[in-house]
């Protein structure tokens, strides 16, 4: 048949229909990032790995420098970085794992380790540790245990952390208030926050309101002698929850901590926290974040300090603990397990790499590296090292990893705190709802 105008039009139309059918009619099309599945080794023997991590811009800059260093030392391997902030990191990772398309090297968190390891998403590093391709002899044993699930090593600690209270030392000095001491209690914290807010006036708060942060509530619960989770149940009683929420409610009322609205508009990005914006004097965070907090602070001339979490009055045990800040894991379905193990070993044990990373992710897990590093550190990092030192002397054992279903309990804890903060419903009801919800979630996830 002749190629008439009719056939050309028909052909173009069906191409158009094909394109429409493929787009699926959705108004939001995800930006396809063109990632290849897993890694590829082409005919010249070059291996390309993908690596993902979360963090601040500071971390991204340091980590890409380490990657470049690794690529220089191993010319046959290139590593493509994929980084983001904390919010949405694990959603994205879960999707990638679902698509069998996750990056080869994955920065992992204690909260999600069990979920991912038990579901086969992570590479078993035990054989590499045994063959010394991934050297762990100088690592803290408790950190190795923390990275193991069911006796298999899935994650190497990238930095040792501890929860702490970051405070603006300059503001404290300016107001003539004594900086928090190691022995301080929740009452001291409350008094300090109230005093600061009163002295500075409207728009300035003693501290950010962290009543919805499960991690910090966990420390509070640890102070009563137990972990927040025991096997597959949440152990907090309604009395303990009431105590916690009441404490923060009182502080909201007298202006000591941020209002419900301000708290709701703050995210996990350190730049948005009140202390960074210059509207609060204290915040609860992790020791390694001190560096970034210092860098993103609006008032660059303010000095930040860090102190242990306030002690419970009549506490049964110290709530503080050393935590693996984050881990480095391999993807369970990676095509290059050897190279993945090689990189992980490089990142935690190589003197040059660890020197670049410093303590931005936490204090290095390799004790000989720690010793080497300490004398040469800049001031802010010395503070962190000293803080970890303090905590290691005043802390108790870390609890086992969170059970499956933690993500949902974490979200509902935050909602509960917001409900209370905005005055929607009375506190005992909200607490009862939360406890019930947690039981249902954890029960069905085990």
């Amino acid at each position: 048949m002749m190629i008439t105008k009719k056939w050309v039009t028909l052909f173009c139309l069906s191409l158009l229909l094909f394109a429409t059918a493929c787009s699926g009619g959705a108004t939001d099309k995800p930006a396809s990032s063109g990632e290849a599945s897993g890694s590829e080794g082409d005919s010249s023997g070059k291996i390309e790995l993908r690596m993902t991590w979360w963090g601040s811009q500071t971390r991204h800059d340091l980590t890409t420098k380490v990657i470049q260093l690794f690529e220089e030392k191993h010319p046959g391997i290139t590593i493509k970085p994929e980084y983001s902030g904390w919010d949405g990191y694990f959603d994205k990772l879960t999707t990638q794992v679902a698509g069998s398309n996750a990056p080869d090297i994955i920065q992992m968190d204690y909260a999600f380790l069990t979920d991912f390891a038990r579901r086969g998403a992570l590479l078993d590093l035990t054989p590499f540790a045994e063959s010394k391709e991934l050297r762990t002899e100088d690592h803290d044993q408790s950190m190795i245990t923390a990275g193991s699930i069911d006796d298999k090593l899935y994650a190497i600690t990238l930095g040792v952390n501890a929860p702490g209270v970051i405070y603006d030392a300059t503001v404290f000095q300016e107001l003539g208030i004594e900086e928090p001491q190691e022995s301080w209690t929740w009452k001291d914290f409350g008094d300090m926050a109230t005093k600061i807010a009163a002295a500075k006036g409207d728009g300035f708060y003693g501290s950010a309101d962290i009543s919805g942060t499960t991690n910090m509530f966990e420390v509070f619960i640890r102070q009563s002698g137990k972990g927040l989770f025991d096997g597959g149940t949440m152990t907090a009683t309604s009395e303990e929850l009431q105590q916690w929420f009441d404490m923060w409610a009182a502080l909201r009322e007298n202006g000591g901590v941020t209002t419900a609205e301000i708290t709701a508009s703050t995210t996990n990005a350190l730049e948005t926290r009140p202390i960074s914006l210059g509207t609060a004097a204290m915040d609860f965070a992790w020791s390694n974040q001190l560096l970034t907090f210092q860098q993103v602070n609006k008032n660059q001339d303010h000095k930040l300090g860090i102190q242990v979490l306030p002690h419970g009055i009549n506490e049964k045990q110290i709530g503080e603990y050393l935590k693996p800040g984050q881990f480095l894991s391999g993807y369970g379905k990676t095509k290059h397990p050897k190279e993945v193990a090689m990189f992980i070993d490089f990142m935690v044990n190589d003197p040059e790499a660890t020197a670049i990373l410093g303590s931005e992710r936490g204090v290095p897990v390799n004790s000989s590296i720690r010793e080497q590093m300490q004398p040469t550190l800049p001031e802010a990092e010395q503070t962190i090292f000293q803080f970890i030192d303090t905590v290691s002397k005043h802390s108790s054992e870390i609890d086992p990893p969170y059970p499956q279903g933690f993500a949902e309990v974490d979200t509902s804890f935050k909602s509960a705190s917001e409900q209370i903060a905005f005055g929607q419903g009375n506190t005992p009801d909200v607490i009862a709802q939360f406890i019930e919800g947690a039981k249902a979630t954890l029960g069905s996830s085990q």
Partner: protein
Amino acid sequence: MTTSQVSQARIESVATRRVKRRYAHNGAALLFLAPWLVGLLFLTLGPMLVSLYISFTDYSILAAPSWVGLNNYTTMFTSDKLFTQSLKVTFTYVAVSVPVKLIFALLVAMLLNKGIRGLGIYRTVYYIPTLLGGSVAIAMLWRKMLGGDGLLNSVLAMVGIKAPDWVANPKYALYSIVLLSVWQFGSSMIIFLAGMKQIPPEYDEASAVDGAGPLRRFFYITLPILSPVIFFNLVMQLITSFQSFTQAFVISNGSGGPVNSTLMYSLYLYKKGFSFFQMGYASAMAWVLVILIGVFTLLVFRSSKLWVHYEDGGKS
């Protein structure tokens, strides 16, 4: 052979050739349709069937799905308070944003229909939000603008009004998203404008001569003639606003807003599927949404008999 036998043979051969040509035409048609059919099968129908299967399982994404029957559906309707909340939020959003958007679009279309100068420019400018509005960038901008220290509050502060944080306050957060949706009235407006241009001006002139005021003319001439267009816009807006996700996700920073006040249905679905490792439940939610939208669309279609006037009497 006899003449009749010869002509019979000739008729048969013509018929065969015609049949063969029809099959040839069918073959060509199928070939052209093939790309679209493949797309339909593999990118739409196929995944839909898989999703239906998954909705009857417990699927954490990281492990294989395990059959649980109707468990997901029953949990949804009996013990999931957040599900009820997400329905409430979505219904509120749809009930407010769709009528407001359509009414606004209609009003602006009427204004533009008066034949003002620069009609083309206005049309384009009003249409731009629809193009950009669904994007992440605009949603982030919206969030900053309506936030505690955002543009809106700064302007209000200049006049001495201390306004709440429109995005972080559970009373107002949803309405920030409604506003964002109403801002995108452009596409509906253009369709209304096109519909209005088709109204024969003779009706208006004749009734004006008969003494009908502008209001009467609007309700008795313009609206009825426009009713098919209104019907179309209503159905389209209903369907898309039930599925709304991006704006709620970005403005609430993925959380569903302060105290779940912006937890739209699809946002909750997303969280269940990707953040809480319950893809089976999320798939069940997706199917419930399909049925929900189907029911509402059906209701609108049924009701259309009462208020939609087609010029040919609706016989087509």
